[in-house]
Every structure is written in structure tokens, then in C-alpha cells.
């Protein structure tokens, strides 16, 4: 295992979105992450390449997996990790994001990981602080580390991405995961199908270079990967769908629908899942088809790679 402090160069100071990255940036992150997969499986999981560095996790939205994944990633690299509890902070007392940023900046962190409910919040933060900013999800815009870990999972199983046919299904409208994945999978040479009821399809999404379908069978036909998204009921302000059971009937992933994809198709889901709404519960747990747990596992490796690269 060769994990050294070797210098790696990334073209950007911050990781705000896949849109800003070049293909060599992506390869750099993915290659670095591959080395951490092994580390995470070994007995001693801790190294000290980020010793003396300070990482602040600034989560304005509730998150279990992303926050814990970033926290663990930082700790395994030896960084001092502080997770801000926004519920008790001054933000609830009316402090603006910029004021919070300036306060934190004065504490000289080396990296800030931010999740925010507003699209572009990480861009705003990055303009005001001296350290690197990693986007852990902003509104509906981007969730770059999720897309990177999805790509790593696909490469781990299929050895490549180029030429694969990948369907992203479900609530595309509210999904930053979908957007980041579209950019990344397109960049890496996959053919991307978007499957969603028209009510949950963002305007002009086909201009991003994807095929759109409102029929699930057609959309996942011959696909190598079927990526399901969570129905984000909490973001739905007015009626998008008649009912969850109707949604499941037409857009929920069932063995029957999956039979239209390739025989060896893999199922992915960024979590948390709504079992019985967007995915059949047995399928979600089918170790031959579902790589959902692997996604979580590789998530830590991808975030370690990002922390390492952007800290330098």
C-alpha cells in the first residue's frame, strides 16, 4: 500500500461542482480514492497526512451519511474535525452565511465542508473564505462527492464507465445528485438516460446531453446501471404526484421492470431510500444486484481523496 505525501495538483481551489472539474481532475480524485479503499479495509485505518489541518463541517441541512462520511474521512487522515451544530448556532439567531463564514475564517480552518439548502451557497462561501470549500450538496444544484463515489463504485464493478448505458430514475427535479451525475457520467463517456414523470423533470434538461423518458421500461431498457433517486417529498411544495402507490406502480423499481435492463445490471441509490416507493425492498437488499452498501463504503474513500487533494 503506497500512501505517501506526494504532491498532487488539482486545477481548482474549491470543489463546488463537477461542472468546474476537468477530466484529469476527476481521474486524479478517483485514482487517489482507489488507494484509500484498501486503507479503509485494513486493520489500522488511520494515517497522518492531514495532521495539523483543521476541517470544519458546516451542515445547514440534516444529513446522516454525508456528514458522518466526511467526518470519518477527515479523522482517518488525521485532521482535526469539527462538526458545527447549526441548530444551536448564531445562524438561527439571524446571522447571515457570510458573517458565519467570516467568523469561521478567522479561526484559520484548512477546509470547510458545507451542505446548504440553497443552490449556490457554497459558491458564496468560497468567495469569502481563504481556505478550500468542499460542497457536500447545495440545494438542487450539485453534490459532487456523491457523483464521484458513484463513478468509483461503477468502475469498481464494471471496470469502466465509457460506453456504459446508465439510467437515472426518479425525482430529477429536486435532485442535486442527478445533476452532478449527469455531468460526470457524460464526461466519462457513458450514455445517460433520465427517467421521470414529466412533473419531476427540470426544464430543458435534455440540453445537458441526456435522453429523457417518462416510461420506465423504455428508459432502463438495455441499461448497465439503474440509479434510483429518492422521492424528495419534503421539497415538494405543491402536487407533483397523485400518490406514492401510483408512483411505485409506474416508476418504482421492481424485478419486473428491472428485467428490461441488461441481465447483469447493477442497482444504485444515493440513500436514504424510501422502500416500497421508489424501490422494491427485496431488490434494494439483493446482494447480487444492489451496490447500495458499496456506495456508502466507497463514499468514505472518495471524501478522503477530496480532503487530501483540496487541503494541499
Amino acid at each position, binding site marked *: 500500500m503506497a500512501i505517501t505525501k506526494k504532491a498532487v495538483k488539482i486545477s481548482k481551489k474549491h470543489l463546488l461542482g463537477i461542472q468546474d472539474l476537468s477530466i484529469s481532475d476527476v481521474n486524479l480524485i478517483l485514482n487517489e480514492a482507489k488507494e484509500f479503499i484498501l486503507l479503509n479495509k485494513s486493520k489500522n485505518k488511520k494515517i497522518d497526512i492531514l495532521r495539523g489541518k483543521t476541517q470544519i463541517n458546516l451542515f445547514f441541512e440534516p444529513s446522516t451519511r454525508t456528514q458522518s462520511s466526511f467526518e470519518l474521512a477527515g479523522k482517518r487522515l488525521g485532521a482535526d474535525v469539527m462538526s458545527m451544530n447549526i441548530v444551536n448556532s448564531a445562524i438561527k439567531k439571524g446571522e447571515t*452565511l457570510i458573517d458565519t463564514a467570516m467568523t469561521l475564517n478567522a479561526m484559520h480552518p484548512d477546509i470547510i465542508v458545507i451542505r446548504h439548502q440553497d443552490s449556490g451557497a457554497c459558491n458564496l462561501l468560497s468567495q469569502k473564505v481563504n481556505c478550500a470549500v468542499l460542497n457536500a450538496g447545495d440545494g438542487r444544484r450539485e453534490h459532487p462527492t456523491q457523483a464521484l463515489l458513484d463513478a468509483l463504485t461503477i468502475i469498481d464493478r464494471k471496470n469502466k464507465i465509457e460506453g456504459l448505458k446508465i439510467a437515472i430514475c426518479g425525482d430529477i427535479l429536486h435532485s442535486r445528485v442527478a445533476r452532478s451525475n449527469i455531468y460526470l457520467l457524460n464526461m466519462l463517456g457513458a450514455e445517460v438516460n433520465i427517467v421521470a414523470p414529466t412533473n419531476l423533470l427540470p426544464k430543458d434538461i435534455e440540453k445537458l446531453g441526456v435522453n429523457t423518458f417518462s416510461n420506465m421500461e423504455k428508459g432502463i431498457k438495455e441499461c448497465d446501471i439503474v440509479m434510483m433517486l429518492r422521492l424528495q417529498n419534503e421539497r415538494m411544495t405543491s402536487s407533483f404526484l397523485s400518490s406514492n402507490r401510483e408512483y411505485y406502480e409506474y416508476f418504482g423499481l421492481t424485478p419486473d421492470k428491472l428485467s428490461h435492463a441488461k441481465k447483469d445490471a447493477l442497482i444504485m441509490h444515493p440513500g436514504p431510500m424510501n422502500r416500497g416507493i421508489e424501490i422494491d425492498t427485496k431488490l434494494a437488499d439483493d446482494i447480487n444486484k444492489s451496490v447500495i452498501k458499496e456506495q456508502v463504503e466507497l463514499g468514505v474513500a472518495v471524501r478522503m481523496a477530496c480532503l487530501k487533494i483540496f487541503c494541499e
Partner: protein
Amino acid sequence: MKKKYFLNANIIDPHNSIDELGGLIISEEGKIEAVGKKVNKNNIPSREKFIDLNGKHIFPGLVDMRVFVGEPGYEYKENFRTLSNAALSGGVTSVVTMPNTDPVIDNVSIVDFLKRRGRDKSKINIFPAASLTKNLEGTNMTEFGLLKKKGIIGFTDGTKTIQNTRLMSRIMKSAYDLDCLIMQHAEDYELSKNGMVNDGIVSTKLGLQGIPDISEKIIIERDLSLLEDFNCRYHISQVSSAKSVELINQKKNEINFTTGVSINNLSLNENDIGDFKTFLKLSPPLRTEDDRLSLIKAINNDLIDVIVSDHKPEDEESKRITFSQAATGASGIETLLPLTLELFHNGSVKLFKLIELLTSNPAKILKIDKGNLSIGSDADFCIVDIFKPWIVKKEKIVSKSKNTCIEDKKLQGLTMKTFVKGEELFKI
């Protein structure tokens, strides 16, 4: 006041169909005494001092039909004094102020206050609009008749739209009886709910809720249908999309109504928002380049009558936050003229036409004796070097709020002097 003589100017006065090289004489009372090519060195008294303008332009003082002032309630954003200085620096001498203040301009007593403040603090002509509904709530009509008697020249809910169709039809009937001007901001709230930018590839990429162009069209369509029965004086405050223009084209010959457009929608498109520039969060939103081009075409086809600045001062604190939290609107009264001149310089619209949309057309819609150089009228005018290049800098903005949406833009055309009632109130 001494008599003033200006010679050798390119004078454009659409109201009087003047577009010629000539002079302008201002009487001792501050009125227009003579104008046009007949005013030259040979026919003014030789002892009088005159100003040779060397071919610079004289336009009637601009009439801006859509201006937000922070008084009362938001004086920290803009007051009558700062608004008036900003306007003068851009050649604007008359403005219609929107009623979206605190308290709202919705009753007779507040109008008295407003007129007094406007008179004492402002050097330009203030024409206050009152709200269509009490407290802008969209439920109960204000007293159009009584307000009109107090000097209100038009009614609008400003940034808000009357959603209730029955109420809108009643408003039109009242306005018809009382000969009142109704100005509608066209936006269907259900369709535009939580929207921030044009619904399209930009909203998809930025992950921001979109405002579809149909939300504007559907209100215009509804109002024009209502107008077929009661043709009151009706003005669409701002159009932003090709779809609306197409509809206006279909109806223009059947029904009497007028249409405005913001200079922002004529000059910028959704791509200018770039990396979440909150200063470009506008209402109506900036739309596609095709939409922008359709608006220019509409001006040339006489489908749009007025260009407005949609001047909406907002303090830094309301803009230095995330895009979804940021306030809507941009400060723009002082750049209205130079930004409009860009359409002339790039060959989109003829100069005479543009000046018509900034002066005589709004005055005609408002039924005010402004925006012209008619003999005997108040000498409200500006002297403009239409070729002078300059760059918009935030720190040079005169308005109290610096939220310009064209920071660092290179413009051509600068107001050299502005006069109100014959008095020189601005000089570069």
C-alpha cells in the same frame, strides 16, 4: 432666472416630431420659448451669451414610469433626495413612484404626505402611483376616484399582481368609470411560486426554481380578455418574453392597451446571471436571448410603448446572501438612458424611436404634460453626449443603493447636463 440660449444641438423631440440640428431658448420663467432649426446665431440678440453645444444632443427630460423609492419606510434604501439626484444624473426629470412602501400608498392621507415630501426633497417631478388594492393585499380596491383627485396619476400593485379574476374585472370597471390608468405587473403566482430565474436550462443548471414565461402570458391573456368588455386605460408594466410579445401582436389591433419593458430585459439575458449574481435577480426575470431579441423586434414593430428602468434600490445586506434569499431588483435609473442608447449604437433600434419610448410615449399614457419640448411647456430637458464612452462603477453610482446589474459594463453616452423648469440641476 436669466434667459438661456443653446445653439448647434441635435434636438430630438418625438412629441413635436422634431429631429434636427438647431437651438433652444429658455424663457426667464423656465419655459420653452423657441426650439428647432430656426433658432440659430443669426436670430438671437447679439449681446446675449449663448452656449454652443457642438452637435451634442438635447432630449426632453426622460419620463420613467417604474421607479421604487424607499420613502416612506425604507429610507435606508433610497429617499426622495437621493432618488432625485440619481435621476438627474441620468437625464430623468419625471418619475412614477411605485406604492410598495411602508405604509403602502393606498389612501388619501398618505398621498398628502408623499406629495409634500416629494415637493420639499426632490428636484424632479414626482408622480406617485397608488396601489390597486388596500395594503397590496389583492382583495379590496382602493378609492380610485378620491386618490385621483389628490393627484394620483395611475394605479398599480407594483411588484404584485391581481390574482383574483373577479376583482380584476371590477377594478377595470371602476377604472373605466373614473378614467383611471391601471398598470399591471403580469405574473401568475401559482406558476411562478418560489421562482427566481427564467425556467429553462439556466434554472436547471443552477438548481434554482424557474419562473416560466407562461406565468406572464397567462395574466396578460386574462386581462386582455377582460378588457374586451370594459376597455379602461390598461398598461402592462413590463413584458419579458417572446410568448407575451406574440400575444400582444395578436391583440394590438383589437383592443386598446399599452405595454412597457424594462431596460434590463432589453439589454441582458439569463446567461448574464453567471455564477449566482444576486444583482441580476429581477422581476420579471432575465430570459433567453431569443426572448430579448423578440422584445427589440417588438419595439421596432410598435408593440411596446415604453422603456422603464424598473429602478429598485436594495441595500447590500439584501443582496450579499444566497440567491434564493436575496432581494429582487436592481438600481438603474441613472443608467436607463446610456443603456438604452446601446440599442442605438448596436443598430437594434433608431434613436428617435428610443427617445419616443423614454419621453413622449410614457407622458401620453400618463396624460401628463412632460417629456416634450413644446413651446410654453416647462423646460425639462437634458444635454447628452451620445458617443461618450464610460464604464459603470459601483462606487460612482449616485443612488443610495449600489445594486446595479451592469457593474463594469462599457457604455456609450453620458448625460452632460439636466434641467428642470429651466434650472440647471445637474452637470457632469
